[in-house]
């Protein structure tokens, strides 16, 4: 594996792999969590059961990307892992506990009809807390973390700020949009109409959120303004808001035409573009303003060994994940498409 260490820019490759894992997590568990957030709006009974069944076979695989993101960070950038997690301790613990409630609710609600309302509430509360905490984590990271030596040097309320609450709310809105558009694709009848109405509202909320976070980021520190608004970089960075506008237009058109899958795919693209925007803001740092990816990188030997495994396993993982989605393709509970 030594040839890997010398012929590949390992640290940069790993930064992209981890960013990719986080993105995969955000969009895949994003629609799971979004459905959880919207859950109370759905009618008890048929609508809720359909919404739950739309994600029951895949949520566990979706959540695994979070483990890859965290585990990958530990492995490829141990210093960043060791600084970020203590710094964002409360929101991370909140996220983990939220995911506990969300995850067990999938099984428990079917096992205990007498207390189904309770587990539905746990499903929603867990999804909401996890999404909010993830957004807060993002905002706090963008704002910057106090570092001294090889450790976090701030207090344990540093993560809480108007900006991090804004990013928290934005992620909740964005996940809800993903969830609603995924349901447009997966359910039919009244539930589908319901999902469409929700998707419209979540779309406008998400649009506002993107605008607010973008402007807010520029005011965070000089670095971001410089990165985004100085020429000649501007010609490159200007593509990001341009693409967002184009995608927003496409969303409106496909929704008006009553398309089923296109709104969800457009939302994925929208997430991708905004995620790339975040990447532009952060690069080449992993903790903005404090620790670069090179500072935090594990030794080449560690990164090369993992890259060897990832190069073999990733295509296999993507193949069987795609297979699992293929098995459960199409509408939930529509008799026509079952075998």
């Amino acid at each position: 594996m030594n040839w890997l260490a010398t012929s590949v820019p390992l640290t940069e490759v790993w930064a992209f792999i981890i960013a990719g894992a986080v993105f995969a997590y955000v969009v895949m568990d994003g629609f799971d969590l979004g459905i959880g957030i919207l859950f109370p709006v759905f009618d008890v009974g048929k609508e809720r059961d359909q919404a739950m069944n739309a994600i029951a076979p895949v949520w566990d695989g979706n959540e695994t990307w979070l483990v890859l993101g965290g585990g990958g960070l530990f492995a490829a950038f141990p210093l960043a892992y060791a600084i970020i997690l203590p710094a964002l301790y409360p929101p991370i613990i909140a996220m983990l506990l939220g995911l506990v409630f969300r995850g067990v609710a999938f099984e428990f609600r079917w096992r205990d009809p007498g207390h189904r309302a309770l587990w539905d509430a746990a499903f929603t509360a867990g999804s909401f807390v996890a999404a909010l905490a993830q957004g807060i984590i993002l905002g706090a990271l963008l704002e910057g973390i106090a570092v001294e030596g090889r450790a976090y040097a701030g207090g344990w309320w540093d993560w809480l700020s108007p900006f991090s609450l804004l990013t928290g709310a934005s992620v909740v809105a964005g996940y809800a949009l993903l969830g609603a558009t995924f349901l447009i694709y997966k359910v039919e009848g009244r539930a589908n109409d319901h999902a469409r109405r929700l998707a419209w509202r979540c779309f406008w909320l998400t649009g506002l959120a993107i605008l607010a976070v973008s402007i807010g980021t520029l005011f965070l520190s000089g670095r971001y303004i410089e990165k985004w608004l100085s020429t000649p970089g501007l010609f490159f960075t200007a593509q990001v808001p341009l693409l967002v506008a184009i995608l927003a237009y496409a969303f409106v058109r496909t929704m008006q035409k009553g398309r089923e899958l296109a709104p969800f795919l457009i939302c994925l693209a929208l997430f991708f573009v905004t995620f790339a925007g975040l990447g532009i803001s952060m690069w080449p740092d992993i903790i903005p303003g404090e620790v670069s990816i090179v500072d935090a990188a594990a030794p080449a030997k560690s990164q090369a060994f993992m890259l060897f495994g990832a190069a073999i396993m990733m295509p296999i993982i993507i193949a069987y994940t795609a297979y699992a989605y293929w098995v459960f393709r199409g509408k939930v509970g529509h008799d026509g498409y079952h075998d």
Partner: protein
Amino acid sequence: MFDAFDALILARIQFAFTVSFHFIFPAFSIGLASYLAVLEGLWLKTGNSVYLALYKYWLKIFAIAFAMGVVSGITMSYQFGTNWSVFSDRTGPILGPLMAYEVLTAFFLEAGFLGVMLFGMNRVGPKLHFAATAMVAVGTFISAFWILSVNSWMHTPVGFALNEVGQYVPAAPWIDIIFNPSFPYRLVHTVIAAYLTTALVVGAVGAWHLLKDRANPHARKMFSMAMWMAALVAPVQIFAGDMHGLNTLEHQPQKVMAMEGHYDSHPDGAPLILFGIPNAEEKRIDYAVEIPKLSSLILKHDLDAPLAGLDTIPDDREPPVSIVFWSFRIMVALGFAMLGLGLWSLFARYRKRLYDWPWLHRAAIVMGPSGFIAVLAGWVTTEVGRQPFTVYNQLLTADSVSPLGAPAVGASLLAFVIVYFAVFGVGVWYILRLVGKIPQISEDEPARAPIRSSGITPGPAEGKGGRGNMNTDPDNGPEVAPAK
């Protein structure tokens, strides 16, 4: 309110609590996934519907246990960073890649095929479905492989160097790091423990139903299979545990001294202390019941072999003796009780009384949770016995902890305790409720109609034709004849 404790002890309690709670579920689901694969394989091979009914019965339980394992496991993958950040920074270059391999080769495999296993029987057909079950079972084993390699490296670290910022970096071929000296023993001992734990649970459930209806074919089948496991695997486990102990003696002698309660060195043959009360202040075992020279015989295969005691270890490098002393005895006693149950079942089989010997069934019920207790006691022995280090003889636990205040760690600990007991307590209760129902093949019985799909299929699903396929409760799926 947490000022009375320091962050270190709270972080240790938190890790011990979350990892102990977590491990209960994989200890069960590793064995249960394999049991399900065996059941489905036997059904495909023989066409005997008893196997299919048992498969569906245990699949529901597996789904709950697995979900709890997943959510408590995600916590673990972040515990290293939140509470043990210095440890994470310093060991990340070696342990990180091994854990990344666990995610890449095991977690995705389990999670990817779990959906097909739980909900896909009607969609992919029996053979592909069996393949999905087998993948989940293989995934649980691969997961155990990597995480035990990580754990073993912390006990017997090899193949590393220290870099300029104090990180342990790989300095040997990865194969040497993965197969560090204690890993093969720990892997065998832990995986067998998981199989045995599951067998004892299955046996207890079978026994419970045999007490109520000794003719029930499903109860008979599961009890018989479980007792074969206990009879065959318990002795293997005792042997594997002995090998693991000898390996520990070689690499972590003070852990064995604490297990044995040997405060003093014995230059001419050490006694085996059966019972006694460790007295940490006086550094002796009070009220010891001991067999002279037996410990030397077991550990060195020589009655008169000298054995060093904890008097050769500096006080600040000594593991807490009383915990290790007791947890080890609990584990060993339960191991022999399992062996006893297995032998009793063989005798009952020989006398043709396996299914109508109520005292055997009662004993099997009592032994139902013993696997969990033994597994936890074993982990306590090995982990507490490693103290005061996280990486043995390299990195002190006290030097591994995150720079967090006691209130932060204490508050999160409290949250974990409340949430885990509430959520997982309820989950275990649901499992107990499920195993309380007698397994049977009853497709169209409305009382057992499943919940998973209520409301999706228009109209009551009575015949096979009218049932929507999202109706995936394992009990209620159409009988699919195995394709031969």
